[in-house]
């Protein structure tokens, strides 16, 4: 059985990773100290802190998601996929009438037989179910003015860069697919403490708090500033920085389990900001301005072997520093290791230049088909700009910096800018002759909202699909209708559309003054 094979493969995971997980438990944050480990390829020991003045930095960040059902209009799901949004225009047009037709096609719920007929196994058959709907969001745009009309239409959808490939709508005009311009908005969620929304600790913003309901999207999008921000130029990172680039590190790995290079230096936190790439941990003594960062010396078989590490200083330079080898990431006195070497190059550049350099290195380090696919659909420049935007919005340069990023770890910024939820916009130009109409259709896969398996929720196996009728749109709708194609596969658990599958009512007229429609379904006989 496939999953058993996976379970057994996990048994043989690398010893270093097992040891890392054993030594680095998920730690509650306390007011007294923070701790940071980000171990790559080998084991680093978490260091015990002595003395209240010493502030250890870093976080193992517990995750966050949402609550369960019990909502004024439909359920609040633990994983919320966001609603289907309406089309809008770059500028409001008085003489444009719009009819909207949305269709939910649940054919993906059809069980799929998958046959494993590979060489050394006898043929096995599996059944796979997909919990997603094919949504067709269609519009008739009718020019009622006395002139030809040229408009820029904008279609929003929610997701992340890493999901984008599967969820981006295909736009057609009068039946022909057209090219569109993609624009990405900033992170849509907020931040919360390690105790979730119940966290009472000031400044505790270690976790992402994703949007959990359509009302939160209403709050975000209704005044138009989010979309304006999305279409704004990205910020430049022209800040001057001094870079310490560490390369060609060597150590005798037979002498220690995890040879580590530690750099110690002085810095005034009010005058200097530090960013790093490729470092595994560090410490900071705020009272004495003593600061340290360290990284494990990789072996030839490690993916990061030969990779440069960067200590990036903004503001006052760090001045003299001390390099010392240690037997492990604890970097404790008595654990020094001789014979550890590294080349350090110091140069000045801009934060933007160095962020671009580490992004390219990061892509190379984690090169795989997924990254290549992402690079094919989202330009390098846009990925870089979204990382820069995150750095400026919530990183240590921001006036609203979040604890999640307060260590200046650029890997976190790069990876999070790809995985975090945002609203995307597809924009395209249309010409509508006087008295004519144009049919615009967005066809997309819409992921389900759901409660997690094993959560004990009453809503397990229930999938939610939300729709908003007018949110963020400046169109004048004269009609909105909705239809459903159920293929006798699903049953409706909750809704406010008025569908009645039993009696064959599969097409209904919507009331645009009702902002939100919800549809909650499940596979038949899947309670």
């Amino acid at each position, binding site marked *: 059985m*496939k*999953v*058993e*094979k*996976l*379970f*057994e*493969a*996990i*048994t*043989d*995971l*690398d*010893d270093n*990773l*097992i040891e890392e*997980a*054993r030594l680095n*438990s*998920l*730690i*509650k944050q306390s007011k007294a100290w923070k701790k940071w*480990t*980000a*171990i*790559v*390829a080998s084991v680093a020991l978490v260091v015990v802190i002595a003395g209240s003045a010493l502030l250890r930095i870093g*976080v*193992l*960040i*517990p*995750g*966050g*998601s949402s*609550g*369960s059902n019990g909502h004024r209009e439909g359920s609040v799901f*633990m*994983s919320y996929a966001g609603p289907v949004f309406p089309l809008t225009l770059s500028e409001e047009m008085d003489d444009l009438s719009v009819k909207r037709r949305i269709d939910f096609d649940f054919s993906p719920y059809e069980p799929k037989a*998958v046959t494993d*007929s*590979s*060489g050394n*196994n006898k043929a096995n058959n599996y059944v796979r179910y997909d919990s997603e709907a094919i949504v067709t969001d269609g519009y008739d745009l009718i020019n009622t003015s006395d002139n030809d009309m040229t408009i820029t239409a904008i279609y929003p959808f929610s997701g992340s860069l*890493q999901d984008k490939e599967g969820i981006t709508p295909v736009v057609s005009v009068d039946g022909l697919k057209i090219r569109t311009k993609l624009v990405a908005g900033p992170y849509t969620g907020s931040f919360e403490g*390690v*105790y*979730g929304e119940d966290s009472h600790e000031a400044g505790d913003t270690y976790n992402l708090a994703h949007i959990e309901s359509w009302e939160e999207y209403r709050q975000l999008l209704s005044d138009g500033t989010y979309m304006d921000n999305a279409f704004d130029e990205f910020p430049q990172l022209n800040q001057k920085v001094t870079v310490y680039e560490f390369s060609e590190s060597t150590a005798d790995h037979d002498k220690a*389990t995890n040879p580590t290079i530690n750099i110690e230096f002085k810095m005034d936190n009010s005058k200097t900001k530090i960013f790093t790439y490729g470092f595994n941990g560090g410490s900071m003594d705020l009272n004495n301005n003593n600061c340290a960062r360290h990284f494990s010396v990789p072996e030839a078989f490690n*993916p990061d072997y030969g990779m440069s590490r960067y200590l990036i200083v903004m503001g006052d330079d760090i001045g003299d520093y001390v390099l010392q080898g240690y037997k492990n990431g604890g970097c404790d006195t008595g654990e020094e290791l001789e014979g550890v070497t590294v080349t350090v190059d110091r140069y000045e550049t801009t934060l933007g230049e160095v962020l671009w350099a580490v992004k390219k290195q990061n892509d190379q380090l*984690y090169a*795989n*088909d*997924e990254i290549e696919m992402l690079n094919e659909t989202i330009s390098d420049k846009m990925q870089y700009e979204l990382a820069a935007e995150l750095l400026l919005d919530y990183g240590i340069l921001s006036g609203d910096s979040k604890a999640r990023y307060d260590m200046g770890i650029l*890997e*976190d910024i790069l*990876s999070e800018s790809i995985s975090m939820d945002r609203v995307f916009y597809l924009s395209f130009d249309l010409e509508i002759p006087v008295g004519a109409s144009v049919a615009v259709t967005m066809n997309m896969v819409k992921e389900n909202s759901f409660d*997690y*398996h*094993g*959560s004990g929720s009453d809503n397990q196996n229930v999938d939610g699909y939300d729709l908003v009728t007018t949110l963020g749109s400046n169109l004048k709708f004269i009609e909105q209708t909705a239809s459903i194609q159920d293929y006798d596969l699903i049953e409706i658990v909750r809704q406010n559309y008025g569908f009645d599958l039993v009696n064959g009512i599969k097409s209904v007229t919507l009331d645009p003054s009702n902002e939100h429609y919800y549809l909650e379904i499940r596979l038949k006989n899947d309670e």
Partner: protein
Amino acid sequence: MDDSKIIELYWLRDEAAICETDKKYGRLLHSITLNILSKFEDAEEIVSDTYRKAWNIMPPQRPKFLSAYLGRIARNLSINLWQKNRAQKRYSGVEILISELTDCIPLSLSVEQEIEGRELTETINFWLLSIPADDRVLFIRRYWFGDTLINLAAECGTTPNKLAGRIYRLRKRLRKFLESEGIFI
């Protein structure tokens, strides 16, 4: 006692090796086996078998990390016992873990050669190295050590539901990664 000293006791054929192993890692091994088998008696038996097996293979072996080495033995023995007894006994621990891991199985209709177990392990190793350290620790704590959601959530100060969401996203990421690598399990 230091791992190297415990291993030295094995090599000296000193039975204190078992006692020292139990003192240092007994609780961890019980936890791994109990998280898979959910039956105390069976877990006890597996831990004893783990010590016996360790005694038989040291020497000649000298593991780098004794905890991972012993844990792997215990985990393998637990999986074997589960597979042997699953028709008669219901082991809820492993069944929950297995059920969750179905989210990671990539879809493939190809007739390419099925990936070997060792290669699959290497691919997961590589994926784990590509994700943030805290996510890596969480994944391994859940699916290698078998730690319960309740315990993990309590440890990091969140609710089991919230943690379940985070782990679900990790499983989904692994599936996407395996698919992107063209892995067919």
